[in-house]
């Protein structure tokens, strides 16, 4: 566990050593606000909750999370530091976990920095802060899902551009798999069970319940197992790359 902590610290520090972190945080906060107040009609709804805020998180994450995850492994491979990193006395599991947790903590920081929106809604009305908290927890879990997918993709390539594009595409599939656009495509010919399974993979469906304040065990299990599966795949891909 010590090693995970050291890797975590180094990775998280790495975000802030370059402008990447600041650019990301500013863009994330600006977009989150724009979406909430303009597209989400925060004021016009006249309701003291953060639905308008959370509803756009899947779409924000869709392209912002791959921007965080793309460097995790690709950058190491491109700069050759991976040779140094993987010849240190650490297990691949520790390496994967340390990197993932650092990226996740970074998203956590971005989420924490949205607190002015939370203050705003508390000034304007009397929201159920339990529901707001559930929304934040759900958003963080969903971010973990996107990140795990992105980290896994990043392990395949030394090009950050490829890592970004492929991760964004994969995340898109997971985001929209519950929408009529996708389901209609399968509904015509696939058995009902398959269609339901595909719908069950949708981030939107699982996040929707949590963001309304309902933390259902099934949704938690979904995100946790998704993250575990992709991190496992990530470790397997890093191991596979050793073969050359």
């Amino acid at each position, binding site marked *: 566990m*010590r*090693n995970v902590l*050291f*890797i975590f*610290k*180094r990775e998280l*520090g*790495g975000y802030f*050593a*370059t402008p990447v972190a600041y650019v990301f945080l500013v863009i994330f906060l600006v977009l989150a606000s724009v979406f909430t107040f303009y597209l989400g009609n925060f004021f016009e709804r006249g309701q003291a909750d953060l639905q308008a805020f959370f509803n756009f998180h899947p779409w924000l994450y869709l392209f912002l999370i791959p921007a965080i995850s793309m460097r995790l492994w690709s950058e190491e491979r491109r*700069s*050759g*530091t991976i*040779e*140094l990193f*993987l*010849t*240190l*006395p*650490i*297990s691949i599991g520790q390496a994967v976990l340390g990197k993932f947790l650092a990226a996740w903590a970074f998203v956590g920081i971005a989420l924490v920095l949205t607190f002015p929106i939370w203050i705003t809604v508390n000034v304007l009305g009397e929201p159920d802060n339990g529901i707001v908290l559930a929304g934040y927890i759900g958003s963080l879990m969903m971010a973990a899902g996107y990140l795990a997918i992105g980290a896994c993709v990043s392990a395949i390539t030394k090009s950050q551009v490829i890592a970004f594009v492929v991760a964004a595409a994969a995340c898109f599939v997971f985001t929209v798999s519950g929408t009529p656009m996708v389901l209609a495509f399968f509904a015509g010919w696939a058995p009902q069970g398959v269609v339901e399974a595909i719908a069950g993979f949708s981030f939107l469906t699982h996040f929707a319940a949590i963001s309304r304040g309902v933390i259902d065990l099934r949704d938690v299990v979904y995100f946790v197992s998704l993250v575990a599966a992709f991190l496992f795949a990530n470790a397997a891909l890093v191991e596979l790359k*050793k*073969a*050359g």
Partner: protein
Amino acid sequence: MSAPPMLEIRGLKKYFGPIRAVEDVSFQVAKGEVLGFLGPNGAGKSTTMKMITGFLAPTAGTAIVCGHDVETDPIAAKKRIGYLPEGAPAYPDMTPAAFLDFVGAIRGFDGAERADRVALAVDRAQLAGVLHQPIDTLSKGFKRRVGLAQALLHDPDVLILDEPTDGLDPNQKHEVRELIRRISPEKAIVISTHILEEVDAICSRAIVIARGRVLADGTPEALEKRSRWHHAVSVVTAAGEVPRLKALWNAHPAVAEFEVAEGEEGLAMLTAFPRGGAPMLAELGRIAREAGVRIDEIREERGRLDEVFRDITTKAA
């Protein structure tokens, strides 16, 4: 040698698809040995080193580091190895201080001990002046030394250095060689290089590989003996004396052939190559003196490693 080798390479092979990068490389390195790993570019030096350090999985064979198999017990093996990868990669956004602190932490050192280890490595690699600059902004020489400091931090039993002096100026090269010489009695060291003078300077043993195979393995002196220049005799004399001297020496059975190089001011250098590599300086000197041939300078040549190297690596084609 009675002690078990600190590093043992057993039948390493690495194929990348149809490309056979390393084809059955085996050797052992004992404590106190500095092994020069020589070969042309693309010979498989770096690939072999990547397999020893556990970065690449071998197609066949393995490396045993102080009794730990890199394949089955990688973490224990990696703890005993200090590795400077080719090009000395290091995290560009970090400062050497932060980078070495990170490596020290992963290597299992805490608090004061970590600080001491980092301080010692910084001192050995002479990094004090750039400790707080991003590695990105450092010169090639400093980057290389950051990599060396990182490899030496935990005082490893086995050091694998991939071109440790590449990109250093002559003074820095000298420093690094001194450093390696100083620490070598306690360690098994493998250095890849294509600088042959380096082999002469610090290596107690040299291995030549080409196309993934070990072609020669011995002390630098033993390798030099393979050279036709080994025990050759060169003499500087007046150009007019050359034919007479040639005739005198040619009568001697140890002499195989001659080479003549014209010099300035009517001088020339005549080199006699031995048959079978036996010493003949004393004999030839006596013959010349007794005949009263003018001699400005006479010396015995050393074997030429570069020639041996070329010979070994091109013949195998």
